[in-house]
Protein backbone atom coordinates (compact mmCIF):
# COMPACT_ATOMS: atom_id res chain seq x y z
CA UNK A 1 0.00 0.00 0.00
CA UNK A 2 2.71 2.44 1.04
CA UNK A 3 4.86 1.34 -1.86
CA UNK A 4 2.08 2.06 -4.34
CA UNK A 5 1.53 5.46 -2.77
CA UNK A 6 5.22 6.38 -3.07
CA UNK A 7 5.49 5.17 -6.66
CA UNK A 8 2.32 7.02 -7.65
CA UNK A 9 3.49 10.22 -6.00
CA UNK A 10 6.80 10.09 -7.83
CA UNK A 11 5.04 9.42 -11.13
CA UNK A 12 2.59 12.31 -10.55
CA UNK A 13 5.42 14.71 -9.76
CA UNK A 14 7.40 13.51 -12.77
CA UNK A 15 4.49 13.95 -15.18
CA UNK A 16 3.50 17.31 -13.72
CA UNK A 17 7.04 18.69 -13.94
CA UNK A 18 7.47 17.27 -17.44
CA UNK A 19 4.20 18.85 -18.56
CA UNK A 20 5.03 22.27 -17.13
CA UNK A 21 8.55 22.16 -18.57
CA UNK A 22 7.10 21.24 -21.95
CA UNK A 23 4.69 24.17 -21.69
CA UNK A 24 7.46 26.59 -20.70
CA UNK A 25 9.82 25.54 -23.45
CA UNK A 26 6.99 25.39 -25.95
CA UNK A 27 6.71 29.17 -25.62
CA UNK A 28 10.40 29.56 -26.42
CA UNK A 29 10.32 27.08 -29.30
CA UNK A 30 7.23 28.80 -30.65
CA UNK A 31 8.85 32.21 -30.65
CA UNK A 32 12.08 30.92 -32.18
CA UNK A 33 10.33 28.83 -34.86
CA UNK A 34 7.84 31.54 -35.83
CA UNK A 35 10.73 34.00 -35.94
CA UNK A 36 12.58 31.71 -38.35
CA UNK A 37 9.50 31.56 -40.56
CA UNK A 38 9.51 35.35 -40.67
CA UNK A 39 13.33 35.57 -41.14
CA UNK A 40 13.85 37.04 -37.68
CA UNK A 41 15.93 35.65 -34.82
CA UNK A 42 13.46 35.69 -31.95
CA UNK A 43 14.53 35.83 -28.28
CA UNK A 44 18.24 34.91 -28.10
CA UNK A 45 19.67 37.02 -25.30
CA UNK A 46 18.53 35.29 -22.08
CA UNK A 47 21.03 32.46 -21.68
CA UNK A 48 22.70 30.49 -24.49
CA UNK A 49 20.44 30.60 -27.56
CA UNK A 50 17.70 32.18 -25.43
CA UNK A 51 17.32 28.99 -23.40
CA UNK A 52 16.58 30.88 -20.19
CA UNK A 53 13.83 32.99 -21.76
CA UNK A 54 10.96 30.92 -20.21
CA UNK A 55 12.51 31.44 -16.76
CA UNK A 56 12.72 35.17 -17.38
CA UNK A 57 9.12 35.24 -18.58
CA UNK A 58 7.95 33.35 -15.53
CA UNK A 59 9.79 35.72 -13.20
CA UNK A 60 8.24 38.66 -14.98
CA UNK A 61 4.73 37.20 -14.69
CA UNK A 62 5.12 36.41 -11.00
CA UNK A 63 6.50 39.79 -9.99
CA UNK A 64 4.23 41.88 -12.14
CA UNK A 65 1.50 43.86 -10.41
CA UNK A 66 -1.73 41.87 -10.29
CA UNK A 67 -4.33 44.38 -11.45
CA UNK A 68 -7.96 43.57 -10.74
CA UNK A 69 -10.13 46.02 -12.69
CA UNK A 70 -12.84 47.83 -10.76
CA UNK A 71 -15.86 46.64 -12.71
CA UNK A 72 -15.22 42.88 -12.51
CA UNK A 73 -17.12 40.25 -10.56
CA UNK A 74 -14.21 39.55 -8.19
CA UNK A 75 -14.85 36.00 -7.01
CA UNK A 76 -15.62 34.57 -10.43
CA UNK A 77 -12.82 36.64 -11.97
CA UNK A 78 -10.35 34.95 -9.59
CA UNK A 79 -11.73 31.44 -10.08
CA UNK A 80 -11.63 31.52 -13.90
CA UNK A 81 -7.81 31.23 -14.37
CA UNK A 82 -7.76 28.26 -11.98
CA UNK A 83 -10.57 26.67 -13.96
CA UNK A 84 -8.33 26.99 -17.03
CA UNK A 85 -5.18 25.65 -15.41
CA UNK A 86 -6.47 22.69 -13.36
CA UNK A 87 -8.43 20.75 -16.05
CA UNK A 88 -5.61 21.35 -18.53
CA UNK A 89 -3.13 19.58 -16.25
CA UNK A 90 -5.57 16.89 -15.08
CA UNK A 91 -6.33 15.37 -18.45
CA UNK A 92 -2.75 14.16 -19.01
CA UNK A 93 -3.27 11.61 -16.19
CA UNK A 94 -4.66 8.77 -18.30
CA UNK A 95 -2.26 9.01 -21.23
CA UNK A 96 0.34 6.21 -21.33
CA UNK A 97 3.72 7.87 -21.95
CA UNK A 98 5.86 4.73 -22.14
CA UNK A 99 5.71 0.95 -21.80
CA UNK A 100 7.21 0.13 -18.40
CA UNK A 101 10.55 0.49 -16.68
CA UNK A 102 12.19 -1.59 -13.99
CA UNK A 103 13.72 0.30 -11.09
CA UNK A 104 15.13 -1.55 -8.05
CA UNK A 105 13.54 -4.76 -9.32
CA UNK A 106 10.04 -3.33 -9.49
CA UNK A 107 8.20 -3.03 -12.76
CA UNK A 108 6.56 0.37 -13.09
CA UNK A 109 3.93 1.06 -15.75
CA UNK A 110 4.47 4.43 -17.34
CA UNK A 111 0.93 5.72 -17.02
CA UNK A 112 -0.55 7.58 -14.07
CA UNK A 113 -3.96 5.97 -14.06
CA UNK A 114 -4.90 2.99 -16.20
CA UNK A 115 -8.63 3.75 -16.42
CA UNK A 116 -10.81 1.50 -18.52
CA UNK A 117 -12.78 4.56 -19.64
CA UNK A 118 -9.68 6.68 -20.30
CA UNK A 119 -10.96 8.20 -23.54
CA UNK A 120 -14.17 9.37 -21.87
CA UNK A 121 -12.18 10.76 -18.94
CA UNK A 122 -10.22 13.04 -21.25
CA UNK A 123 -13.46 14.28 -22.80
CA UNK A 124 -15.02 14.86 -19.39
CA UNK A 125 -12.08 16.96 -18.25
CA UNK A 126 -11.95 18.93 -21.52
CA UNK A 127 -15.64 19.73 -21.23
CA UNK A 128 -14.99 21.23 -17.79
CA UNK A 129 -12.28 23.43 -19.33
CA UNK A 130 -14.90 25.45 -21.24
CA UNK A 131 -15.99 27.08 -17.99
CA UNK A 132 -12.81 29.06 -17.56
CA UNK A 133 -13.43 30.74 -20.90
CA UNK A 134 -17.11 31.47 -20.28
CA UNK A 135 -16.56 32.68 -16.73
CA UNK A 136 -13.52 34.83 -17.50
CA UNK A 137 -15.36 36.50 -20.37
CA UNK A 138 -18.48 37.11 -18.33
CA UNK A 139 -16.88 38.24 -15.09
CA UNK A 140 -14.49 40.68 -16.79
CA UNK A 141 -17.46 42.86 -17.77
CA UNK A 142 -15.69 43.98 -20.90
CA UNK A 143 -17.07 43.71 -24.41
CA UNK A 144 -13.87 42.27 -25.87
CA UNK A 145 -13.72 39.58 -23.22
CA UNK A 146 -17.37 38.69 -23.62
CA UNK A 147 -17.20 38.52 -27.42
CA UNK A 148 -14.04 36.44 -27.23
CA UNK A 149 -15.51 34.05 -24.71
CA UNK A 150 -18.76 33.58 -26.63
CA UNK A 151 -16.83 32.90 -29.83
CA UNK A 152 -14.49 30.54 -28.08
CA UNK A 153 -17.09 28.51 -26.23
CA UNK A 154 -19.31 28.25 -29.33
CA UNK A 155 -16.29 27.06 -31.27
CA UNK A 156 -15.26 24.53 -28.63
CA UNK A 157 -18.77 23.11 -28.32
CA UNK A 158 -19.13 22.81 -32.11
CA UNK A 159 -15.82 21.10 -32.71
CA UNK A 160 -16.07 18.83 -29.68
CA UNK A 161 -18.87 16.91 -31.41
CA UNK A 162 -16.80 16.05 -34.50
CA UNK A 163 -13.77 15.30 -32.34
CA UNK A 164 -15.82 12.86 -30.26
CA UNK A 165 -17.07 11.10 -33.39
CA UNK A 166 -13.52 10.83 -34.76
CA UNK A 167 -12.46 9.18 -31.51
CA UNK A 168 -15.52 6.89 -31.59
CA UNK A 169 -14.32 5.36 -34.87
CA UNK A 170 -10.91 4.66 -33.31
CA UNK A 171 -12.66 3.08 -30.33
CA UNK A 172 -14.75 0.97 -32.72
CA UNK A 173 -11.63 -0.33 -34.47
CA UNK A 174 -9.69 -1.14 -31.32
CA UNK A 175 -12.70 -2.26 -29.29
CA UNK A 176 -11.83 -0.52 -26.03
CA UNK A 177 -12.01 2.83 -24.25
CA UNK A 178 -8.77 2.07 -22.42
CA UNK A 179 -5.87 4.05 -23.88
CA UNK A 180 -3.38 1.28 -23.09
CA UNK A 181 -5.43 -1.22 -25.05
CA UNK A 182 -5.72 1.26 -27.92
CA UNK A 183 -1.92 1.61 -27.97
CA UNK A 184 -1.45 -2.17 -27.85
CA UNK A 185 -3.93 -2.58 -30.71
CA UNK A 186 -1.67 -0.49 -32.98
CA UNK A 187 1.27 -2.86 -32.69
CA UNK A 188 1.09 -3.93 -36.34
CA UNK A 189 -0.80 -1.08 -37.97
CA UNK A 190 -1.04 2.47 -36.67
CA UNK A 191 -4.53 3.91 -36.70
CA UNK A 192 -3.36 6.78 -38.89
CA UNK A 193 -3.29 4.24 -41.73
CA UNK A 194 -6.49 2.38 -40.89
CA UNK A 195 -8.42 5.54 -39.92
CA UNK A 196 -6.96 8.38 -42.03
CA UNK A 197 -10.23 10.36 -42.18
CA UNK A 198 -10.67 10.18 -38.41
CA UNK A 199 -7.08 11.32 -37.98
CA UNK A 200 -7.56 14.43 -40.13
CA UNK A 201 -10.84 15.29 -38.38
CA UNK A 202 -9.23 14.82 -34.97
CA UNK A 203 -6.29 17.01 -35.93
CA UNK A 204 -8.47 19.87 -37.21
CA UNK A 205 -10.79 19.68 -34.21
CA UNK A 206 -7.84 19.51 -31.84
CA UNK A 207 -6.45 22.75 -33.23
CA UNK A 208 -9.89 24.38 -33.03
CA UNK A 209 -10.40 23.11 -29.46
CA UNK A 210 -7.17 24.68 -28.29
CA UNK A 211 -8.04 27.97 -30.02
CA UNK A 212 -4.87 28.02 -32.08
CA UNK A 213 -4.24 29.45 -35.55
CA UNK A 214 -5.95 29.25 -38.01
CA UNK A 215 -8.83 28.87 -35.55
CA UNK A 216 -7.68 31.54 -33.10
CA UNK A 217 -10.72 33.79 -33.58
CA UNK A 218 -11.32 34.03 -29.83
CA UNK A 219 -8.03 35.89 -29.52
CA UNK A 220 -8.11 37.72 -32.84
CA UNK A 221 -5.82 40.59 -31.86
CA UNK A 222 -7.01 42.96 -34.54
CA UNK A 223 -10.65 42.77 -33.50
CA UNK A 224 -10.77 41.65 -29.89
CA UNK A 225 -7.52 42.89 -28.29
CA UNK A 226 -6.87 39.48 -26.69
CA UNK A 227 -10.25 37.81 -26.32
CA UNK A 228 -11.44 36.33 -23.06
CA UNK A 229 -8.30 37.16 -21.05
CA UNK A 230 -8.10 40.82 -22.08
CA UNK A 231 -8.65 42.06 -18.52
CA UNK A 232 -6.19 39.69 -16.84
CA UNK A 233 -2.64 40.48 -15.84
CA UNK A 234 0.35 38.96 -14.05
CA UNK A 235 0.08 35.30 -12.94
CA UNK A 236 -3.68 35.13 -13.57
CA UNK A 237 -2.91 35.75 -17.21
CA UNK A 238 -0.02 33.32 -16.87
CA UNK A 239 -2.42 30.57 -15.81
CA UNK A 240 -4.52 31.01 -18.95
CA UNK A 241 -1.31 30.92 -20.93
CA UNK A 242 0.00 27.75 -19.30
CA UNK A 243 -3.48 26.22 -19.56
CA UNK A 244 -3.55 26.83 -23.30
CA UNK A 245 -0.12 25.28 -23.80
CA UNK A 246 -0.94 22.34 -21.54
CA UNK A 247 -4.05 21.77 -23.65
CA UNK A 248 -1.90 21.73 -26.76
CA UNK A 249 0.38 19.15 -25.19
CA UNK A 250 -2.62 17.06 -24.15
CA UNK A 251 -4.21 17.14 -27.60
CA UNK A 252 -0.86 16.22 -29.17
CA UNK A 253 -0.42 13.38 -26.67
CA UNK A 254 -3.96 12.16 -27.41
CA UNK A 255 -3.32 12.29 -31.16
CA UNK A 256 -0.10 10.33 -30.62
CA UNK A 257 -1.84 7.73 -28.47
CA UNK A 258 -4.90 7.32 -30.66
CA UNK A 259 -3.33 7.44 -34.12
CA UNK A 260 0.48 7.21 -34.08
CA UNK A 261 0.85 4.08 -31.97
CA UNK A 262 1.55 5.89 -28.70
CA UNK A 263 4.92 4.99 -27.23
CA UNK A 264 5.64 2.22 -29.71
CA UNK A 265 8.73 2.35 -31.88
CA UNK A 266 11.88 0.38 -32.65
CA UNK A 267 13.44 -0.98 -29.48
CA UNK A 268 11.38 -2.03 -26.47
CA UNK A 269 13.10 -0.64 -23.40
CA UNK A 270 11.14 1.72 -21.17
CA UNK A 271 13.36 4.75 -21.64
CA UNK A 272 13.32 4.33 -25.42
CA UNK A 273 9.51 4.11 -25.44
CA UNK A 274 9.36 7.40 -23.53
CA UNK A 275 11.65 8.91 -26.13
CA UNK A 276 9.42 7.77 -28.99
CA UNK A 277 6.38 9.16 -27.22
CA UNK A 278 8.10 12.49 -26.67
CA UNK A 279 9.26 12.66 -30.27
CA UNK A 280 5.78 12.00 -31.66
CA UNK A 281 4.20 14.57 -29.34
CA UNK A 282 6.83 17.06 -30.44
CA UNK A 283 5.97 16.42 -34.09
CA UNK A 284 2.40 17.46 -33.41
CA UNK A 285 3.49 20.49 -31.42
CA UNK A 286 5.71 21.53 -34.30
CA UNK A 287 2.75 21.14 -36.65
CA UNK A 288 0.86 23.63 -34.47
CA UNK A 289 3.65 26.18 -34.88
CA UNK A 290 3.97 25.50 -38.58
CA UNK A 291 0.25 26.16 -39.06
CA UNK A 292 0.39 29.28 -36.93
CA UNK A 293 3.23 30.75 -38.94
CA UNK A 294 1.78 30.01 -42.35
CA UNK A 295 -2.02 30.20 -42.32
CA UNK A 296 -4.37 33.22 -42.21
CA UNK A 297 -7.22 33.29 -39.70
CA UNK A 298 -10.67 31.92 -40.51
CA UNK A 299 -13.71 34.16 -40.58
CA UNK A 300 -16.31 33.32 -37.93
CA UNK A 301 -19.07 32.18 -40.31
CA UNK A 302 -16.54 30.13 -42.31
CA UNK A 303 -15.49 28.44 -39.08
CA UNK A 304 -19.04 27.53 -38.09
CA UNK A 305 -20.01 26.41 -41.61
CA UNK A 306 -16.90 24.29 -41.86
CA UNK A 307 -17.47 22.70 -38.46
CA UNK A 308 -21.13 21.86 -38.82
CA UNK A 309 -21.52 21.34 -42.58
CA UNK A 310 -18.24 19.65 -43.53
CA UNK A 311 -16.54 18.08 -40.52
CA UNK A 312 -19.62 16.77 -38.71
CA UNK A 313 -21.21 14.93 -41.71
CA UNK A 314 -17.78 13.57 -42.63
CA UNK A 315 -17.22 12.33 -39.07
CA UNK A 316 -20.66 10.67 -38.93
CA UNK A 317 -20.07 9.04 -42.32
CA UNK A 318 -16.69 7.78 -41.12
CA UNK A 319 -18.25 6.26 -38.00
CA UNK A 320 -20.95 4.62 -40.14
CA UNK A 321 -18.45 3.09 -42.58
CA UNK A 322 -16.13 1.98 -39.75
CA UNK A 323 -19.00 0.38 -37.84
CA UNK A 324 -20.14 -1.48 -40.96
CA UNK A 325 -16.57 -2.64 -41.64
CA UNK A 326 -16.09 -3.83 -38.05
CA UNK A 327 -19.41 -5.65 -38.19
CA UNK A 328 -18.52 -7.48 -41.42
CA UNK A 329 -14.91 -8.41 -40.60
Amino acid at each position, binding site marked *: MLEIAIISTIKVIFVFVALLTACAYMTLIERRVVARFQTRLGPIYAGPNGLLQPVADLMKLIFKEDIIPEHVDKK*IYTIAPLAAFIPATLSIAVIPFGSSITIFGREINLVLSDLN*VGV*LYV*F*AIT*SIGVYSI*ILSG*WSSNSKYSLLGSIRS*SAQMISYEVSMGLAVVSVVLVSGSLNLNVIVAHQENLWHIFSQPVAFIIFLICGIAETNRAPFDLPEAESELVAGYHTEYSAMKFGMFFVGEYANMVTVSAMATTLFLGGWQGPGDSGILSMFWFGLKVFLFLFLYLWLRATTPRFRYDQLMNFGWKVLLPLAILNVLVTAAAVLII
Partner: protein
Amino acid sequence: MEYVIFFASAFVAIVCALLVISQKNPVASVIFLIMAFVAQAILYIQLSALFVAILQIVVYAGAIMVLFLFVIMLLNLRRDDFGPEKHPLQGWLTRIFGVVLVAELIIVIARGVSQSESVDTAASDFGNVEQVATILFTRYVFPFELTSILLIVAIIGAVVLGKRRAEEK
Protein backbone atom coordinates in the same frame (compact mmCIF):
# COMPACT_ATOMS: atom_id res chain seq x y z
CA MET B 1 -9.53 6.59 3.80
CA GLU B 2 -12.70 5.64 1.95
CA TYR B 3 -14.80 7.18 4.70
CA VAL B 4 -12.79 10.39 4.59
CA ILE B 5 -13.36 10.75 0.85
CA PHE B 6 -17.01 9.82 1.18
CA PHE B 7 -17.79 12.30 3.92
CA ALA B 8 -15.72 15.06 2.34
CA SER B 9 -17.43 14.77 -1.03
CA ALA B 10 -20.87 14.25 0.52
CA PHE B 11 -20.33 17.37 2.64
CA VAL B 12 -19.21 19.39 -0.39
CA ALA B 13 -22.20 18.16 -2.38
CA ILE B 14 -24.70 19.15 0.31
CA VAL B 15 -23.13 22.52 1.09
CA CYS B 16 -22.91 23.38 -2.61
CA ALA B 17 -26.51 22.30 -3.15
CA LEU B 18 -27.60 24.62 -0.32
CA LEU B 19 -25.53 27.46 -1.77
CA VAL B 20 -27.18 26.96 -5.17
CA ILE B 21 -30.56 28.00 -3.79
CA SER B 22 -29.30 30.67 -1.40
CA GLN B 23 -27.14 32.69 -3.81
CA LYS B 24 -28.53 35.90 -5.26
CA ASN B 25 -26.26 35.89 -8.29
CA PRO B 26 -27.47 33.22 -10.76
CA VAL B 27 -23.96 32.70 -12.17
CA ALA B 28 -22.68 31.83 -8.69
CA SER B 29 -25.59 29.39 -8.33
CA VAL B 30 -24.55 27.68 -11.54
CA ILE B 31 -20.94 27.35 -10.35
CA PHE B 32 -22.06 25.78 -7.08
CA LEU B 33 -24.34 23.41 -8.95
CA ILE B 34 -21.35 22.32 -11.07
CA MET B 35 -19.34 21.70 -7.90
CA ALA B 36 -22.23 19.70 -6.45
CA PHE B 37 -22.31 17.57 -9.61
CA VAL B 38 -18.58 16.92 -9.46
CA ALA B 39 -18.82 15.93 -5.78
CA GLN B 40 -21.64 13.59 -6.74
CA ALA B 41 -19.47 12.07 -9.45
CA ILE B 42 -16.84 11.28 -6.80
CA LEU B 43 -19.53 9.42 -4.85
CA TYR B 44 -20.30 7.37 -7.97
CA ILE B 45 -16.61 6.52 -8.32
CA GLN B 46 -16.66 5.23 -4.75
CA LEU B 47 -19.48 2.91 -5.76
CA SER B 48 -17.02 1.71 -8.48
CA ALA B 49 -19.42 3.05 -11.12
CA LEU B 50 -16.70 4.89 -13.02
CA PHE B 51 -18.65 5.05 -16.25
CA VAL B 52 -21.67 6.62 -14.57
CA ALA B 53 -19.41 9.13 -12.83
CA ILE B 54 -17.79 10.18 -16.09
CA LEU B 55 -21.16 10.45 -17.81
CA GLN B 56 -22.34 12.61 -14.94
CA ILE B 57 -19.46 15.00 -15.58
CA VAL B 58 -19.68 14.94 -19.38
CA VAL B 59 -23.45 15.36 -19.57
CA TYR B 60 -24.40 17.42 -16.52
CA ALA B 61 -21.30 19.33 -15.51
CA GLY B 62 -19.92 19.58 -19.05
CA ALA B 63 -22.86 20.09 -21.37
CA ILE B 64 -26.07 21.05 -19.60
CA MET B 65 -24.52 23.55 -17.20
CA VAL B 66 -22.71 25.26 -20.09
CA LEU B 67 -26.13 25.87 -21.64
CA PHE B 68 -27.43 27.19 -18.30
CA LEU B 69 -24.51 29.56 -18.12
CA PHE B 70 -25.02 30.69 -21.69
CA VAL B 71 -28.67 31.51 -21.13
CA ILE B 72 -27.94 33.40 -17.93
CA MET B 73 -25.05 35.28 -19.51
CA LEU B 74 -26.81 36.23 -22.72
CA LEU B 75 -30.02 37.34 -21.03
CA ASN B 76 -27.95 38.89 -18.21
CA LEU B 77 -30.41 37.74 -15.57
CA ARG B 78 -30.27 39.18 -12.07
CA ARG B 79 -32.43 38.35 -9.09
CA ASP B 80 -34.45 41.58 -9.53
CA ASP B 81 -35.47 40.65 -13.05
CA PHE B 82 -37.83 38.00 -11.76
CA GLY B 83 -39.81 40.60 -9.77
CA PRO B 84 -41.67 40.01 -6.53
CA GLU B 85 -43.74 36.86 -6.13
CA LYS B 86 -46.83 37.57 -8.12
CA HIS B 87 -49.61 35.23 -7.13
CA PRO B 88 -50.73 35.14 -3.45
CA LEU B 89 -51.22 31.37 -3.76
CA GLN B 90 -47.60 30.86 -4.87
CA GLY B 91 -46.14 31.04 -1.36
CA TRP B 92 -48.61 28.54 0.05
CA LEU B 93 -48.28 26.14 -2.85
CA THR B 94 -44.47 26.06 -2.48
CA ARG B 95 -44.82 25.24 1.20
CA ILE B 96 -47.29 22.43 0.55
CA PHE B 97 -45.20 20.90 -2.22
CA GLY B 98 -42.06 21.29 -0.12
CA VAL B 99 -43.63 19.29 2.71
CA VAL B 100 -44.81 16.63 0.24
CA LEU B 101 -41.31 16.37 -1.24
CA VAL B 102 -39.64 16.01 2.17
CA ALA B 103 -42.17 13.35 3.19
CA GLU B 104 -41.53 11.48 -0.03
CA LEU B 105 -37.77 11.60 0.51
CA ILE B 106 -38.10 10.32 4.08
CA ILE B 107 -40.27 7.40 2.93
CA VAL B 108 -37.91 6.47 0.12
CA ILE B 109 -34.79 6.73 2.30
CA ALA B 110 -36.44 4.73 5.10
CA ARG B 111 -37.36 2.02 2.62
CA GLY B 112 -33.85 2.09 1.14
CA VAL B 113 -32.17 1.73 4.56
CA SER B 114 -34.25 -1.35 5.41
CA GLN B 115 -33.08 -3.03 2.17
CA SER B 116 -29.50 -1.82 2.36
CA GLU B 117 -27.97 -5.29 1.91
CA SER B 118 -28.97 -5.44 -1.75
CA VAL B 119 -26.90 -2.32 -2.51
CA ASP B 120 -23.59 -4.00 -1.70
CA THR B 121 -24.16 -6.93 -4.02
CA ALA B 122 -25.02 -4.63 -6.91
CA ALA B 123 -22.02 -2.39 -6.35
CA SER B 124 -19.27 -4.92 -7.08
CA ASP B 125 -19.00 -4.44 -10.86
CA PHE B 126 -22.06 -2.36 -11.57
CA GLY B 127 -22.02 0.33 -14.23
CA ASN B 128 -19.03 -0.41 -16.44
CA VAL B 129 -19.27 0.32 -20.16
CA GLU B 130 -20.01 -3.23 -21.33
CA GLN B 131 -22.82 -3.76 -18.84
CA VAL B 132 -24.51 -0.47 -19.55
CA ALA B 133 -24.24 -1.06 -23.30
CA THR B 134 -25.57 -4.61 -23.09
CA ILE B 135 -28.61 -3.58 -21.08
CA LEU B 136 -29.19 -0.47 -23.19
CA PHE B 137 -29.13 -2.31 -26.51
CA THR B 138 -31.10 -5.37 -25.47
CA ARG B 139 -33.69 -4.86 -22.76
CA TYR B 140 -34.09 -1.09 -23.08
CA VAL B 141 -33.53 -0.67 -26.80
CA PHE B 142 -37.07 0.59 -27.44
CA PRO B 143 -37.07 3.38 -24.82
CA PHE B 144 -33.54 4.25 -25.92
CA GLU B 145 -34.56 4.75 -29.54
CA LEU B 146 -37.68 6.59 -28.39
CA THR B 147 -35.48 9.06 -26.48
CA SER B 148 -33.40 9.72 -29.57
CA ILE B 149 -36.57 10.50 -31.55
CA LEU B 150 -37.66 12.86 -28.77
CA LEU B 151 -34.30 14.64 -28.97
CA ILE B 152 -34.53 14.98 -32.76
CA VAL B 153 -38.03 16.45 -32.43
CA ALA B 154 -36.71 18.94 -29.89
CA ILE B 155 -33.80 19.93 -32.14
CA ILE B 156 -36.05 20.40 -35.18
CA GLY B 157 -38.47 22.39 -33.02
CA ALA B 158 -35.68 24.68 -31.85
CA VAL B 159 -34.46 25.23 -35.43
CA VAL B 160 -38.01 25.99 -36.68
CA LEU B 161 -38.66 28.47 -33.85
CA GLY B 162 -35.30 30.16 -34.38
CA LYS B 163 -35.85 30.44 -38.13
CA ARG B 164 -39.31 31.98 -37.72
CA ARG B 165 -37.98 34.65 -35.37
CA ALA B 166 -35.27 35.53 -37.90
CA GLU B 167 -37.76 35.84 -40.77
CA GLU B 168 -40.06 38.15 -38.83
CA LYS B 169 -37.21 40.56 -38.36
